[in-house]
């Protein structure tokens, strides 16, 4: 049985690869057909960004709207991006999928960056351009970059009483997440292949900051509280978000989120829970809608008497809060109240502010108390 699993995994992944290869071929042949008809070749690209996203109240996720734009090769404002999208398509198909290799966004950037023959123009100036072309290609194929064998920079770590099986190509390794010392396991950017072998967990605690992960790891918080401890190290990477969703849906583990008490921290939480506007097409597989916000809130500042360790909010924070106040996914009453409090008091606080009580206050008092009382925001 232990032998079967990798084989079926490999099968599944081969099939998946073939599926994407087929889609790319179809995509290319559509363009050939247009060219043979002497039409202006174009790609249909669902519009992304805040103007074409909606909040699906029932499914609790940010979803892409129905607006589809056409990107033409022979159009002054589209030509370059069209060409870049074609470079992405060719690289993904020929270099990655056909060889069963994965690459980073930066790999692709360097592989396709060159001077266009007969000109002084580069195919791609900055990586930002190819990154955007990649997203175009993802949405055009109605898929996501992991299936195109493109990796984001891995970010985030985890530790806990859990055993997983991971694969490098067809080679499996079994990893015990309680044996990884102070660093924990770096969460890979592609997590589809990870299997949860064994675990003794009651919930997942995901912190926005490395420093909190280190603090709680040192305090053996995860061991004493039967939790899987995670850090996103800022805005959560796709791998981390996907893994959180799998832990939530496959293992039915509650997920608690811990960020600074400021709009930026709250937005990180919302991204993990509902998805983001820029990647609205992937909310389905990246959002963890059961996630709960543990802290910190402005109410926490009052409740835990942290007033004297707060920081004055900056203008950008206030602007962000005003925007967020209007997002559908922040319309829940408790959140509106928090945002209003923030806008009223114009103060914010870091999680580390809890250290003003004592270093272990967070692991010995704050977290246990919050969890015990189920003192969460939706």
């Amino acid at each position, binding site marked *: 049985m232990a032998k079967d699993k990798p084989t079926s995994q490999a099968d599944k992944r081969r099939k998946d690869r073939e599926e994407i290869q087929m889609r*790319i*071929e179809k*995509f*290319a*042949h559509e*363009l*050939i057909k247009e*060219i*043979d008809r*002497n*039409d*202006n*070749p174009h790609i249909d*690209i669902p*519009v*992304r*960004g*805040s*103007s*074409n996203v909606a909040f699906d109240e029932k499914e609790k996720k940010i979803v892409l709207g129905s*607006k*589809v*734009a*056409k*990107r*033409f*090769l*022979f*159009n*002054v*404002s*589209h*030509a*370059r991006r*069209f*060409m870049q999208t*074609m*470079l992405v*398509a*060719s690289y993904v*198909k*020929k270099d990655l999928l056909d060889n069963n290799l994965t690459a980073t966004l930066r790999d692709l950037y360097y592989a396709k960056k060159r001077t*266009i*023959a*007969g*000109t002084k*123009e580069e*195919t791609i100036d900055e990586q*930002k351009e190819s*990154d*955007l072309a990649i*997203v175009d290609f993802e949405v055009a194929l109605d898929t996501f970059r992991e299936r195109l064998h493109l990796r984001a920079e891995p970010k985030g770590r985890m530790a806990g009483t859990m055993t997983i099986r991971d694969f490098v190509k067809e080679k499996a390794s079994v990893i015990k997440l309680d044996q990884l010392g102070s660093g924990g396991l770096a969460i890979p950017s592609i997590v589809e292949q990870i299997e949860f072998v064994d675990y003794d967990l009651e919930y997942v605690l995901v912190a926005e900051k490395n420093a909190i992960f280190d603090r709680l790891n040192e305090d053996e918080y995860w061991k004493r509280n039967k939790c899987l401890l995670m850090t996103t190290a*800022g*805005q959560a990477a796709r791998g981390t978000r996907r893994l959180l969703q799998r832990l939530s849906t496959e293992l039915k583990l509650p997920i608690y989120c811990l960020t600074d008490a400021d709009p930026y921290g709250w937005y990180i939480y919302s*991204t993990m829970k509902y998805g*983001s*506007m*820029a*990647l609205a097409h992937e909310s389905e597989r990246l959002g963890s809608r059961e996630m709960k916000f543990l802290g910190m809130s402005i109410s926490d500042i009052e409740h835990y008497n942290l007033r004297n360790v707060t920081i004055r909010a900056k203008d950008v924070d206030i602007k962000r809060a005003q925007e967020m106040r209007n997002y559908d996914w922040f319309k829940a009453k408790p959140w509106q109240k928090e945002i209003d409090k923030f806008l009223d008091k114009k103060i914010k606080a870091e999680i580390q502010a809890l250290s003003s009580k004592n270093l272990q206050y967070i692991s010995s008092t704050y977290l246990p108390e919050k969890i015990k009382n189920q003192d969460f925001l939706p």
Partner: protein
Amino acid sequence: MTEKPKPIETGQTADSAKESSFDDTERVMAKDFKEYSVAEFFKKNRQMLGYSGKVRSLTTIVHEYVTNSIDSAEDANIPPEISVEVQQLNSHIKIITQDNGTGVPKSKIGQAFGKLLSGTKFSQRRQQRGQQGIGAAYATLFSQITTGKPTHIKTGIGNYKAFEADVAIDVKTNEPVITNGKEFSQNFRGVRIAAEFAEVTYNRSEYGVYEYLRRTALANPHVQLSLIEPTKEIVVFPRAITQIPPKPKPTLPHPLGLTTSDIMDMAAISKARKISSFLVTEFSRVSNDKVKELDALVNAKLNPKENTEPPHNFVDFNRSPGSLKWHEAERIVQAIQTVKWISPETSTLIPIGELQLEKSLKNLLKPEALKVVARRPRVFRGGIPFLVEAGIAYGGNAGAVKGNQPGGELLRFSNRVPLLFDAGSCAISEAAKTIDWARYDLKDWEEKPVTIFVNFVSVYVPYTGAGKLAISAEEEIVTEIRAALMECARDISHYLHSMQRIEDQERRRQLFFRYIGEVAQALGELTGKEQSVLKNKLQKIAEVRTAMEEKADKVEDAEEELEQMEKAASKELEEESK
């Protein structure tokens, strides 16, 4: 004058009828001249004649000489050819001009160059190029008072006899003093003047001699001008046409634009017996039928019934014009406005002509784009006919170079005479100022290679001052100049648009073709199709798409939207990847 005067002896064999008619006119004018002892007066008030400022004084001198020369050659029906030499002599400047005109008979030299005259030209309704008729003689005086030297004149009428002499003016009596006169045998025709001046400066500024001659050449395409500068550099402004403009004729006022006071003034001195004949004989375009029309209009609401006494306010057109009352004249003026008139007689106005002006501007400016407009005649004030000719030239040698930057220029002319000074108060400047140039893609034309040319043509030019530097900004005139300039500007705007289109097309073309190689390669890699075949097919499509209007690109509004969304999305992406 019953006796036809004998023609002055002339070596010319050309059109003698024309010449004699000129002579005739001259005789008449000579009779009209009144002599003033004005030499002393003008010696003290030289700024009145344009002698203020060192650059301007020199331009004025050259203007007087050149104007006389052009008139003289035109009168002889010869295409004028004039050379101007400017020599720098220590602190003095020597001007030598020579023309190919009729020459001045020996007996008239003193009158022409040694006596300040004030003629009746002011009051005559005839289009004039020359100024007060003081011009050349005042230059003699100016030379005399700044250097103490006489003006050297050489002249001949082409009969193998030439004459030269030094001319000065007796300031006290305003009588010519002719010395060193000598006659010799040479088949010379024309006038050569050599005079020395102090308190003058030569430069190429927009007020200088160079610019004056260039503009004179532009407005007089039948004139060939050459200039030898103090540096010995020779500049030739070649003629564009050989056809000489017709001579102006005196004219009667046109009824349109007449004021009540004009009618009253003219009626008071009219020799006509009836108001009706007064109107027919003393105005142009007024026929008996038109008088009947006026009569009907003036007396229309009076409802005269048969066999009843005429109402007290009935205007009897059979009365003598001297008995015309102000309120009656007022009603005639009102009636005039509603009658349809034949335009003022254009033959009284001597424009450059649309075709001629176009040739001229092409000849000297060699522009990329040019539009010339000659408007129909109009009247201003008391029925004074005028017309406006305008042109806008773009690119080529058009415009004035300011430093190393191209710059625009507004060239003002009145009856072909360049107006170099006092631009601010001029009707032409006013018209140019009030045009919304942005509408014609000529915003900031002052910084573009643009020449704006306006010639105001009229028998009577309403100058703002005695210096004759600017045309009074009267409403009818400004409106007409604006209309002319806007007509030109529309055309230039089309040109600029089409140039822009060509540029855009080229940009599109380059952009479309630039990525074909990359796209063909990628598509070849994806489908296994031959790259060169794909490339050829794409190039064909690109060719077709290039030819399309740019707006074809904007097939869907969603495109604009997409772009904005994309910007937002990339910002969000950036934020998320922090």
